[in-house]
């Protein structure tokens, strides 16, 4: 790809930092032994793996033994949901989630539904936020799991995780899982205090780490069913030789993301507000789905009677890369479940575009984007502001 592109699809994936690629290569070169081997080389690699685990545990404020390496967000979500559901049938088979979750949560729920679990889906308001009151009403004695995403991947709405945690823990024994794939590095995510979740999922490639890396982390020792069985690696919960280079590079990505979190938040927030104001000047032609209260790095909007695909094409001809709602579901034709849940007016339904910022974006790119977008609107819609 050319150097001069403007990459605004960071919620789909990000460009890895050079220092993370460096770590990946160095570990592969010098620490390739199996961490489960008992010879001193294996022991040394195991020490490195433990150091990576300890670093992540420290950032999330839990014990190293509560951090499990996975292949990414989808696996982490699957693991948390199946692991908790299957190990707690003696308490019940009732699960609560929201209707705007990522597919890796919703599909896992559907699969459990087929196995006889009862799933309740929380609705969201027009801003894409759940209601604590509804959550409170849906909690039952036999609720074993509540899974709510921190930041929605399509519109960027932020869910009230602290209030949810409080409500869940006060009224039930249910375990609270939070999909923090989109929020880690942008908002604070940790296990500190009583209003924190019990399990979080984090993915490496959304924070300038490598694809195929992720963790599922627990606040304390929990009863969960093993996800992959075999040689008993990762405390017997996820077998398979641990990918140490991936794990170490993830620890580094998580450290860098955490160190830059506040700074990035401020930067993204400024751009986010600026672009919302800019798009709103198009008045009836553009509907902005994201709100200024939402996550600062995700901005969804749609242009009246224009298909998303058309906008993507028009923008990519000008070297700007954005996506239609979420990358995972963007190849499907039907309207996204999130857009449906938000009850967007039909003229705006089919053209939802998502801009998502990353740490590598610059202020110049934001200004350039405004010009390019105005040009495009003139060409496609004949609209001058």
């Amino acid at each position, binding site marked *: 790809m050319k150097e001069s592109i403007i990459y605004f699809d960071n919620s789909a994936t990000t460009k890895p930092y050079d220092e993370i690629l460096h*770590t990946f290569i*160095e570990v592969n070169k010098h620490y390739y032994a199996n961490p489960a081997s*008992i010879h001193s080389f294996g022991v040394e690699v195991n020490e*490195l793996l433990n*150091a990576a685990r300890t670093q992540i545990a420290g950032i999330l404020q839990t014990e190293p033994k509560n951090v499990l390496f996975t292949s990414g967000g989808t696996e982490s979500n699957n693991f948390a949901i199946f692991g908790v559901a299957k190990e707690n049938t003696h308490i019940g088979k009732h699960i609560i989630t929201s209707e705007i979750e990522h597919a890796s949560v919703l599909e896992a729920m559907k699969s459990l539904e087929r196995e006889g679990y009862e799933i309740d889906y929380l609705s969201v308001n027009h801003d894409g936020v759940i209601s604590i009151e509804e959550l409170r009403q849906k909690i039952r004695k036999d609720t074993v799991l509540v899974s709510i995403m921190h930041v929605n991947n399509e519109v960027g709405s932020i869910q009230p995780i602290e209030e949810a945690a409080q409500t869940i823990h*006060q009224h039930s024994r249910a375990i609270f899982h939070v999909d923090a794939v989109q929020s880690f590095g942008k908002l604070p995510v940790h296990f500190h205090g009583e209003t924190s979740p019990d399990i979080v999922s984090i993915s490496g490639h959304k924070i300038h780490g490598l694809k195929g890396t992720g963790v599922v982390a627990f606040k304390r020792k929990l009863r969960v069913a093993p996800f992959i069985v075999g040689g008993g690696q990762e405390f017997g919960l996820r077998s398979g030789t641990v990918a140490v280079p991936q794990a*170490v590079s993830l*620890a*580094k990505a998580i450290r860098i993301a955490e160190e830059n979190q506040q700074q990035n938040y401020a930067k993204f927030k400024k751009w986010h507000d600026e672009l919302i104001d800019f798009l709103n000047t198009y008045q009836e032609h553009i509907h902005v789905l994201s709100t200024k209260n939402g996550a600062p790095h995700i901005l969804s909007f749609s242009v009246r009677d224009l298909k998303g695909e058309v906008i993507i094409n028009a923008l990519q001809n000008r070297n700007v890369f954005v996506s239609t709602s979420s990358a995972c579901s963007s190849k499907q034709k039907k309207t996204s479940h999130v857009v449906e849940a938000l009850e967007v007016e039909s003229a705006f339904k089919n053209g939802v575009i998502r801009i998502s910022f990353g740490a590598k974006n610059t202020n110049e790119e934001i200004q350039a984007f405004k010009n390019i977008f105005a040009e495009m609107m003139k060409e496609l819609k004949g609209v001058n502001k």
Partner: protein
Amino acid sequence: MIWKEILIRYGELTTKGRNRKDFIHRLKMNIKYIFSDIAPLTIRAERDRMYIQLDNEHQYEVLMEKLPEVFGIQSFSPVAICDSNMDSIKALSLQVMDQYKDKEITFKVEVHRADKTFPLKSHDIQNEVGAHVLRHFENISVNVKQPDVELRIEIRKDATYVMAQIVYGAGGMPVGSNGKSLLMLSGGIDSPVAGYLLMKRGVRFDAIHFFSPPYTSEQSLQKVKDLANELTKFGCSIRLHVIPFTELQVLIKDTVPENLLMTTTRRMMLKIADRVREEIGALGIITGESLGQVASQTLESLTAINDVTTTPILRPLISFDKLDIINIAEKIGTYETSIRPYEDCCTVFTPASPKTRPQIRRVSYFESFQDFDEYIERAVKNREIYAFPEKKVKEEKFKDLL
């Protein structure tokens, strides 16, 4: 943050007469040592209580988390301070009780009026503060006989001290207040637990380990080092004496019949431990033996092994079931390390059927064919000594990668 200090109530040491001063001093030093990473701590030790001044929230969090592990503390409470007037006292009482706002609890107000010039009498203060709290929290009610929470107000000349929460400590006595011993640390589950339990009774110790390369690996030695390091978190430094044992172990194998191998090996270990104990000026030897757990721990075996010394052998686990020992090991965090799968010196030359009832007469007879003293001397002399807690070198090593 409203908390200004933490009040510590002493454990058993309140009952100890003349040594009290030493004990309190020891506890103070131990706390300073354990919390050196949040130093400097200002600690005021009084006859009945100790106060740690809180300078920031981080200190508060670390102390609340780790104080329950420190021996010699019966319980502790975070304390808030305000001026000695009723308005401030009432306002602060609400802030202190705020932590219970979501729970159904009963409480009572306990007033200690050290400053007798304070205009209101204790009873009136109780009434007024109690009513004020009740008005603000719906879920809190009064029970003066058995309250869940005691809101304690101490009015002194300089200020008023308010506290409610009581956190239970680990009990026991400050490490170091009950002399020094030598712990036989094999790398298994039991011996770290034995060390922990005696540490709780105020004993500090060095550890001794028998190392038989190449029959046992560097990793098994590392495991023992890690265990020693883990035990230091309860408040003292530990030196580990590593005895080169291969030569002697092979010699024993060539001298005595197979079914007495284990008994003689243990006797030699104890002899060596006793020599080291003497050198370091320790008084007793601690082991993780539990009656009947394995062949070497039957009463007959213990007698035959113990025969080589008159030094007191402390066996805190003697009546414990294995599961109880495992529970403690998990609680103190040594279990995961102990179960790492490496051979230790006890498992390498284990005979198929060791004698569970060895006779001292027979053991001595076979041992008499060989002079072991010279070998014992050499093993003691060539031992290596490591000091814990270890500085964190490993993390530095991987720093570039992480």
